[in-house]
């Protein structure tokens, strides 16, 4: 089945720096989403980008989608210690429309 794969697996930066995470997937999608998970907690939805959109912003988050390359990126600008978390991309499943497929995640560590 199709799956988002995040890259890198882990990322360590200083406060104030930008963090970029990438996601690649295998087959056509309707939309792609990004979620954040703080240590030992549930996931929180960050942003959804549809297949006919190329870029979307939400606060310090910027998501791009390149359907020709089957890839997406999540940029967090001016990172804060509170951004320390795991970030997952998720894509829809064409054959079972209600469920998502999640990638394995990127672990971001922001130090002050």
């Amino acid at each position, binding site marked *: *089945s199709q799956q988002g794969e995040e890259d890198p697996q882990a990322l360590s930066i200083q406060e104030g720096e930008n963090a970029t995470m990438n996601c690649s997937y295998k087959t056509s999608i*309707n*939309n792609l*989403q990004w*979620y954040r998970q703080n240590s*030992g*907690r*549930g*996931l*929180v*939805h960050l942003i*959804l980008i549809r297949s006919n959109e190329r870029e979307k912003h939400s606060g310090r988050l910027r998501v791009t989608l390149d359907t020709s390359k089957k890839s997406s990126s999540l940029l967090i600008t001016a990172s804060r210690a509170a951004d320390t978390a795991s970030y*997952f991309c*998720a894509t*829809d*499943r064409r054959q*079972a*429309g*209600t*469920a*998502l*497929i*999640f*990638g*394995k*995640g990127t672990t971001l560590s922001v130090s002050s």
Partner: protein
Amino acid sequence: DVKVTQSSRYLVKRTGEKVFLECVQDMDHENMFWYRQDPGLGLRLIYFSYDVKMKEKGDIPEGYSVSREKKERFSLILESASTNQTSMYLCASSLWGTGTGEQYFGPGTRLTVT
């Protein structure tokens, strides 16, 4: 705010026990999901439901069953717990028609089977 609650944050059970994990959402969502999360494997879909008494297998349904008798409640059942079912279990819900839209997650249940 959408709220998804799970019956326990931590649970320890013995091999062979029947285990019930409960999930309740308060936003009248049609779709509900059970995932398990393991290091290096990410989130994997066990079962999902798009209506009361309806259920669909996900990617790893073996050893699990589910029950949805009421719209707000989705239960995951481990018929005979085994050590390889030690994991973090996450429940989620979403609106019908946006089933591939935003999912709302509970805090998770960390299950240890000894």
